[in-house]
């Protein structure tokens, strides 16, 4: 099958090295208390590329196993599980998203994302120019519908809606392909219990706690909850911003209240709280990544992470600035800038680090299913 062949494109030597490292782990098993990866590893005696894809996405890169490993480089066994699984994870993002070339192009190139930002900004500038007097970009606008006097509503939301729907379809498609590839069967094992337990694992960031070690060994060898807290800020900030968007949509399209909304309104409160949380979270994660140990890291994934966090930070900074300066003549420029960043994000959605949650969740579900089957076997 063409897809399977293409998916199998990993150099034989590299695959042999990956399998060797996993077999060292499987003969040792000291790390089994840290996370789900090692018990999952122990359920296998041999490793296919699909197994490795699964394990890679079960790994949260907490790095406890690297610092605990007596066989880590410079030991001749050269075991570096976080680095290897990070590399595989980056590869899975590319191998499962469609079309794959976009991932390689967009996921880790500032140049490409910068180009996207520029194109998006040019698009909105063109909208401003072609829908009326361009001078209104630099005037202050107040009262209901102020934003739409700069960018008409249909042109603001239409393309965004299309892009986000396409992104969503591609994300789900990648997830299904991943599930198909790593499990073989989609329908056989779907269980509500596993879905819910995996959701709790994901939302609780269970595997950023080091299995009771006091957080993950990140950015360095000493366990810390910094990454756990910052990731929660980004995630819940994102959810909060999503609530803001939904609330604004309801207020505008169902209640007929047009933005800008007052400070004490659901969209502004949830939006600004979410924005601040994401700014703190993204900036904090970027700081941690900058200081993080490069030995257990994959340089490519680090670039991908940094790029995504940078873009998210940019969106939130421009969004917050727009909120603060919305009654000044700077509003128009900030609106164009903010929309351009949002557009760029929508465009890279299925190809960037954003996609990680899809594969993570699929892997967590599979892990819970395997646990259940193992428990059932042990019970017999």
């Amino acid at each position, binding site marked *: 099958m063409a897809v399977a062949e293409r998916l199998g494109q990993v150099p034989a030597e590299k695959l042999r090295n990956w399998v060797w490292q996993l077999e060292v782990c499987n*003969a040792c098993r*000291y790390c089994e208390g840290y996370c789900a990866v090692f018990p999952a590893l122990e359920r296998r005696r041999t490793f296919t590329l699909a197994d490795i894809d699964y394990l890679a996405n079960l790994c949260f890169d907490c790095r406890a196993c690297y610092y605990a*490993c007596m066989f880590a480089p410079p030991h001749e066994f050269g075991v570096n599980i976080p680095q290897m699984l990070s590399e595989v994870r980056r590869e899975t993002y590319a191998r499962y998203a469609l079309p794959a070339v976009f991932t390689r192009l967009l996921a880790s190139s500032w140049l490409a994302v910068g180009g996207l930002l520029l194109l998006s900004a040019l698009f909105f500038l063109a909208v401003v120019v072609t829908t009326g007097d361009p001078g209104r970009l630099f005037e202050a606008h107040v009262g209901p519908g102020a934003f739409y006097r700069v960018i008409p509503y249909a042109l603001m939301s239409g393309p965004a809606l299309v892009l986000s729907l396409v992104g969503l379809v591609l994300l789900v498609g990648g997830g299904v392909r991943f599930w198909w590839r790593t499990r073989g069967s989609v329908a056989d094992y779907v269980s509500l219990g596993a879905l819910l337990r995996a959701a709790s694992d994901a939302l609780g960031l269970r595997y950023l706690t080091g299995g009771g070690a006091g957080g993950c060994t990140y950015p360095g060898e000493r366990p810390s909850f910094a990454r756990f807290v910052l990731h929660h800020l980004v995630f819940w900030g994102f959810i909060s911003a999503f609530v803001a968007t939904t609330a604004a949509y309801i207020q505008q399209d169902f209640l007929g209240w047009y933005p800008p909304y007052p400070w004490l309104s659901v969209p502004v409160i949830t939006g600004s709280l979410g924005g601040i949380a994401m700014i703190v979270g993204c900036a904090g994660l970027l700081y941690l990544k900058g200081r993080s140990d490069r030995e257990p890291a994959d340089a490519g994934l680090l670039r991908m992470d940094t790029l995504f966090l940078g873009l998210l930070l940019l969106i939130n900074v421009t969004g917050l600035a727009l909120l603060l300066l919305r009654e000044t003549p700077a509003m128009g420029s900030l609106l164009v800038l903010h929309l351009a960043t949002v557009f760029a994000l929508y465009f890279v959605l299925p190809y960037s680090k954003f996609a990680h949650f899809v594969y993570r969740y699929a892997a967590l579900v599979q892990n819970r299913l395997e646990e259940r089957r193992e428990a059932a076997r042990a019970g017999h």
Partner: protein
Amino acid sequence: MAGEPRYDVIVVGGGNAALNAALAARHHTERVLLLERAPAWMRGGNSRHTRDIRAAHDGIPRYTTGTYPVEEFLDDLQRVGGGRADPELARLVVRESKTLFQWMSEHGVRWQPALKGTLHLSRTNLFFLGGGKALVNTYYQTAARMGVEVRYEACVDELLLDGARVEGVVVKRDGAREVLRARAVVVASGGFEANLGWLKEYWGEAAENYIVRGTPYNDGLVLRLLIDYGAEVVGDPRAFHGVALDARAPKFDGGIVTRLDSVPFGIVVNQHCQRFYDEGEDFWPKRYAIWGGLIARQPGQIAYSIFDARMLDQFITSLYRPYEAPTIRELAVQLGLDPEALHATVETYNRHASRTGTFNPAVLDDCATRGLTPPKSHWAVPIEVPPFYAYPLRTGVTFTYMGVRVDERTRVQLKAGPPMANLFAAGEIMSGNILSSGYLAGFGLTIGTVFGRIAGREAARYGRG
């Protein structure tokens, strides 16, 4: 003041016993220096390769199952140690082991809940999260936080000894030698299992064929200094803890992953294709530690574990693939053995193997050979389902037993005269006081932690005057 030593306590060594000594010393005094021979990435001696510690307890929820009374621990020790232990020190270490969970937790150690895979140890032993290197890392972090000074790649090649006192140590690094003076010194620098030349004094050329499972830095340099100075020796110099390792393992530091658990699932022959010991005498965890010595006594110090396709999935995978062949003769060719001789040995074994018993690796089953010498007492089913498999086995030395005698304050005892006033010993270098043969899983760390703590405390007290 010119005569004032720079340190209160110097700890020689960088593994579990040394770290506990340094931590304990730091609780009682200011200027504590730990000298680790290895570079930072390899710090921790053989403690890096450990996983669990044996401790008496009245039940530690979540981390142990059941209870492990002091009396039972002492009985276990009596049984494996053959009664040659110093009874006072044995009681001391077992009694003190009850406090280890709290002590270790207070110094940052995190634990792993009792797991099914380790069931036979989950009552008697505590498993620290991530294994020995994580343990060692935690202690180094705690030591740094508490203000213990640590130097890596610091090889102590001289102890400044004067009668029953030590004045300090001499550290060699990059060809330069530095004198470091201290009020008291703790030696916790391990045994001499990585010194094949020294092992040869007792084992002859055979020692050349041994594999050292742990750190290459345990060459016994400090132990030799103490013996040469007149310290009283305990433990049989020939005795070591040795297991069957895959012969393809690296010469040093292959750790846990090169061990082989296949022995009970087939037969083991020497290079003349002869069996030499009951492969199914008892459960593997109770027998694995005698196989190093058994192989050491075979010609060429090599043996081969032979089994068939039915047994391949019965044990934890090894790091290396087994040799595989459709017939025993072809397997022998791959191993460089005489095909006819191996074929004959397997045929003989198969004729005497059990065809009526019920094979069950979970119990001491009823599959025993009949009329075969040596017998195979359990799991003795015929080797007849191809493909056939083999692992080459060598002796893997874990640790040595010979050390220096200490008193209950861990002061090093000289052959003549009083104990050293301010020289203390902890860990493998003195474990021969308690254990001179046999082993209890996780007991090395118990000794290291208990006596490391005592040594550090006593050294600090002496240092303060």
